[in-house]
């Protein structure tokens, strides 16, 4: 690995919970590229900061406070106890005190107090209330783009204060006054214009799928199909567009196709809904989130499917599981015997349990697996019919597919899992220092099981996690191919052709 232009955090023992000393302003200069008018205006946001934006921002804040109970309550009830201060991966990786969740929230809360509370109006100094100024806006921009909305802080807060809610509100206000983030807004533009985050047009998509079918045929001798826009199919599969070509994502997509094939269930992708991701959540904009979700409803209706299944993607699964019914429901035109939507891991694990597919672990010979619980799956959603199914179901599928499985340190898995460091709309090259440093708590826990238990691979169930780890693993002297899709393991183990 070429030397990075910044320090790579040293990895300690996860059992000792190393916490860095404060390094004020360590990440003060870290910020994503600003959205240009061309990225802002198609979403209905002003192209640039306009005269009087301060007043507008405060009006927008008032509107948010009246529409989101989470925001109103979280603004009032923090006691500054500090239980969250050592929980954020970005703080642990950078030492910047403004990456402590309470300090990040205070960037917003200080303005709330100034304009919306008696104490802040009368005695601003006493309660840390601040006017909305250019400096405050810049600080918002930089530090609310150093939060991946992973909700780890909300697990440990005695009142459940969720910094993700606050960073979403801040980003929506910034978008609405003309201070948007290029990465997210450009991508949302592509979803509306082309159908997916990566801007893959339909002909390219068809080509890619055909190529994959040929690859599978060459390798297995079995004609596994990857159908698209097939009306009357049983299942509509909605998957992150990275699954169509990025590695290891695409190996997971091949896995889904093999599972459908072996189970004998007819399925289809859709060019209209060729993206599971919903960056409307990252920018905290309800209308965008709804608009993006409606594509899936329209595709399901047009194709006349009976079920909707989502591929491996963390934030997409949160929006799908937790919000889709709200945003694009009701789903009364689908088969009521199945939850809407389902996760591909729910589908596969059910087949494994019912012996509807057969797996041969020797397909993954020599591999020792661990799993990275995706933050949005772990803390923002569920799988199966019991709380915590989002932890047991992926593990069941992995364990059924591989010879050996080991969990990482208990304080870094399940609902205590760390973000990969690239979630929440931060998976962009200009934030690479933040992404590398923010990944350090996960890398620490990974190194621990690699060194002590001989782990060779880490499975991920999220397109962003997979892309982030592929990029940052080498900074920590790991092989970039160490990260694998969960369904890649299924793909290697599944027995095709004798499913009678």
């Amino acid at each position, binding site marked *: 690995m070429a030397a990075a232009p910044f320090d790579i955090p040293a990895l300690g023992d996860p059992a000792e919970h190393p*916490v860095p000393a*404060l390094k004020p302003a360590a990440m003060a200069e870290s910020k994503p590229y600003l959205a240009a008018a061309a990225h802002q205006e198609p979403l209905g946001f002003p192209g640039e900061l306009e005269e009087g934006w301060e007043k507008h921002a405060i009006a927008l804040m008032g509107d948010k*406070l*009246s*529409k*989101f*109970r*989470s925001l*109103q*309550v*979280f603004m*009032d*009830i*923090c*006691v*500054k*106890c*500090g*239980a*969250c*201060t*050592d929980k954020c991966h970005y703080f642990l990786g950078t030492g910047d*005190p403004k990456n*402590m969740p*309470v300090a990040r929230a*205070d960037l917003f809360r200080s303005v709330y107090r100034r304009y919306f509370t008696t*104490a802040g109006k009368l005695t601003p*100094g*006493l*309660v*840390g209330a601040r006017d909305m100024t250019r400096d405050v806006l810049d600080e918002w921009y930089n530090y609310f783009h150093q939060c991946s909305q992973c*909700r780890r802080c*909300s*697990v*440990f*807060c*005695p*009142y*459940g*204060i*969720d910094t993700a809610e606050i960073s979403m509100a801040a980003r929506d206000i910034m978008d609405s006054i003309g201070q948007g983030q290029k990465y997210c807004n450009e991508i949302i533009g592509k979803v509306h214009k082309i159908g997916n985050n990566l801007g893959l047009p339909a002909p390219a998509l068809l080509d890619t799928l055909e190529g994959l079918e040929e690859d599978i045929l060459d390798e297995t001798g079995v004609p596994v199909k990857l159908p698209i826009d097939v009306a009357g199919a049983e299942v509509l599969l909605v998957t992150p567009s990275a699954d169509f070509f990025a590695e290891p994502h695409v190996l997971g997509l091949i896995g889904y196709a093999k599972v459908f094939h072996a189970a004998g269930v007819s399925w289809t992708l859709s060019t209209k809904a060729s993206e599971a991701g919903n960056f409307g959540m990252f920018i905290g904009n*309800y209308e965008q989130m*709804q608009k993006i979700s409606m594509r899936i409803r329209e595709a399901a209706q047009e194709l006349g499917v009976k079920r909707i299944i989502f591929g491996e993607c963390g934030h997409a699964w949160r929006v799908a599981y*937790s*919000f*889709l*019914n*709200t945003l694009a429901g*009701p789903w009364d035109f689908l088969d009521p015997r199945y*939850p*809407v939507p389902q996760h591909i891991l729910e589908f596969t694990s059910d087949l494994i349990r019912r012996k509807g597919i057969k797996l041969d672990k020797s397909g993954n010979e020599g591999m020792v697996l661990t799993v990275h619980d995706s933050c949005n799956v*772990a*803390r*923002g*959603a*569920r799988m199966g019919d019991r*709380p*915590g199914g*989002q932890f047991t179901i992926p593990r069941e599928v992995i364990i059924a597919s591989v010879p050996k499985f080991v969990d990482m340190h208990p304080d870094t898995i399940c*609902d205590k899992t760390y973000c990969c460091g690239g979630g929440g709309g931060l998976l962009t090259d200009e934030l690479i220092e933040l992404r590398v440093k923010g990944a350090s708590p996960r890398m620490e826990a990974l190194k621990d099981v690699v060194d002590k238990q001989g782990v060779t691979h880490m499975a991920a169930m999220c397109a962003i996690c997979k892309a982030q780890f592929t990029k940052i693993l080498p900074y920590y002297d790991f092989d970039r191919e160490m990260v694998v899709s969960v369904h890649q393991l299924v793909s290697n183990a599944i027995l095709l052709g004798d499913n009678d």
Partner: protein
Amino acid sequence: MTIFFAVLFSVSTLVLVAGLGLKIAQYARTPAPLKIPTTPAPLTRPGVALRLGREALLFESLFRGNKPLWLFAMIFHLGLAVVLIRHARYFEAHVGPLVALVQPLAMPAGLAMVAGLALLLARRFLIERVRYVTGPSDLLMLALLLAIGVSGLAMKGMVHTDIVAVKAFFTGLMGFELRPLPADPLLGLHLLLVCGLMIVFPFSKLLHAPGLFFSPTRNQTDTPREMRHLAPWAAKLEEKG
């Protein structure tokens, strides 16, 4: 002094009740448009009640997050709870069974409350991260509570006041009848600080007490696929199409 405190207590009570009432009404009125429980979350309403009960009484999340802080917070809040129950004797003509039960715990509870507060205050200076997020109002709040606790303990243990007269004052006040309050400076200080606390309560972080029960990450069931959750403003948005 009697008239002063009669007026002050009436005003403070009004501010506390009205202020809290308005805040609670605001929390209850504000819609939660999306299902955002921190998962794993309970699937049923009784499950949510249990989760909130564990948070309110056992500080479950804090226990997972920070053991020493959990201990300090427990010491303080348990002490405060006993002290508050015991103070009911100054407001009721006949002392109830619960008040009688905790009576022997009065002194240990008062000491626990003050010790808990002292520990909470100390960590605001000693732990770098906590020092960073501490503002003047956080220190003042602890100082106010400490002063209330210490002045109360001092009256209990050293400079006794005429508690029979104090009780007469409060039971009288509750029937809109003025009875004399002992003119002890320590009692005056104690009552003055308590009124201050009652007045700042609805405007301060003490709102964490009612607020916990309105926190969507803790009070929602995990049932988004089973039931469609739609806020009124979001439904209007849908109609507009």
